[in-house]
């Protein structure tokens, strides 16, 4: 990784000093052990502060949505998939961003990850990403084998921890609605209190809103201060989208999102009797 971070710093510095970008979005050392923190560098000489290590956990693609300056961004595999999504959905213009791809430095908590290297980049930093795994959705399938009662109890228990700080939503690059449905007050869909019902509706709806766009980066779950198991919902949707519509989000810019389209022959498992009748 030493060589990797040197390359990142050099390239970032070059981009700033040649005026190709006004800001570099990357990571710098954090204040807690094992945590690096997002940073916005505007001076070439500050590029030495950039780091690329196990602590670079946030999904930086999120920041491009608010960035008005021409920016370079240092990204790993899942950030790049989020970025592809944002481009597909016309949330970003490609010529406003210089993408510095780097091999993913993360090892923990990403066991099933298959996309460790960026799928889109202008410059690719050399170096080897960690081993990719095999995602067989073991977690989702194991959970689905529990009884409905057990599943419901688990889900209720998890969601009852939620304090509705919206860290999950705000950390998620797919959650960019100008006005989120929870903030909408005409009508007010979701109550402001942390009653279980409102928490449940929030998390279920969010999982559905990001279905087909979620890249399983885990930013939501890492952001949650209460340790709510949010990812299981997203991964269930991931599995369904993959199996039913043969779609994986953020791999190609030109692919149409599965929920924006249809196939006349789509299955109808939601009908009584699974749509066979």
């Amino acid at each position, binding site marked *: 990784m030493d060589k990797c971070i040197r390359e990142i710093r050099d390239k970032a510095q070059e981009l700033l000093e040649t005026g190709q970008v006004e800001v570099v979005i990357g990571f710098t050392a954090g204040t807690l052990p094992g945590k690096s923190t997002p940073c916005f560098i505007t001076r070439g000489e500050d590029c030495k502060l950039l780091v690329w290590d196990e602590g670079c956990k946030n999904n930086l693609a999120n920041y491009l949505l608010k960035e008005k300056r021409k920016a370079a961004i240092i990204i790993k595999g899942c950030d790049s998939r989020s970025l592809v999504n944002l481009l597909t959905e016309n949330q970003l213009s490609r010529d406003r961003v210089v993408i510095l791809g780097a091999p993913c430095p993360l090892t923990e908590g990403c066991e099933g990850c298959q996309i460790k290297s960026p799928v889109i980049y202008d410059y690719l930093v050399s170096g080897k990403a960690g081993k990719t795994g095999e995602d067989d959705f073991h977690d989702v399938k194991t959970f689905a084998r529990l009884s409905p009662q057990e599943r*419901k109890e688990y889900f209720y228990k998890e969601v009852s921890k939620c304090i509705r700080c919206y860290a999950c939503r705000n950390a998620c690059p797919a959650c960019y609605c100008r006005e989120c449905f929870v903030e909408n007050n005409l009508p007010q869909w979701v109550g402001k209190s942390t009653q279980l*019902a409102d928490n449940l509706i929030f998390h*279920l709806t969010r999982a559905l809103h990001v279905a087909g766009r979620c890249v399983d980066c885990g930013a939501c779950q890492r952001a949650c201060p209460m340790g709510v198991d949010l990812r299981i919902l997203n991964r269930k949707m991931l599995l*369904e989208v993959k199996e*039913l519509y043969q779609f994986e989000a953020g791999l190609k810019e030109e692919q149409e999102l599965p*929920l924006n*389209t*249809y196939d006349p022959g789509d299955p109808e498992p939601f009908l009584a009797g699974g749509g066979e009748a």
Partner: protein
Amino acid sequence: MKEPKIVAFLCNWCSYAGADLAGVSRLQYPPNVRIVRVPCSGRVDPLFILTALKHTDGVLTAGCHPGDCHYTSGNLVARRKFTLLKSLLEFVGIEEKRVQFDWISAAEGNRFAARIRDVTEEVKGLEPWDRWGGRQDG
């Protein structure tokens, strides 16, 4: 159990007209259902269904048969949403019968009445619904 309350989201062009036909044909169906008319089944956001379950025991969503959508493809796009919603609900342990879908055309008054009878009976047969954990006092 107490009589369940059911909400039906019906598309304006087919299913609502089907309900209308059931009415003018004097077909009997349970009074448990409250109808919400929507422009198209494609307008039914999963949020509508989840929110309806806060106050009711079952939800039926019905639209035009695939191929017959007034807006050509509203119901075809909706199919994918419904598929995912249904599978997510099932995943978190919500009974299959609690949230139902159907295609009902303007000519299918009988089908509408039968569907309401079935949904009502089926929801009645389920364990009482906690309405997402119920309203808590605070």
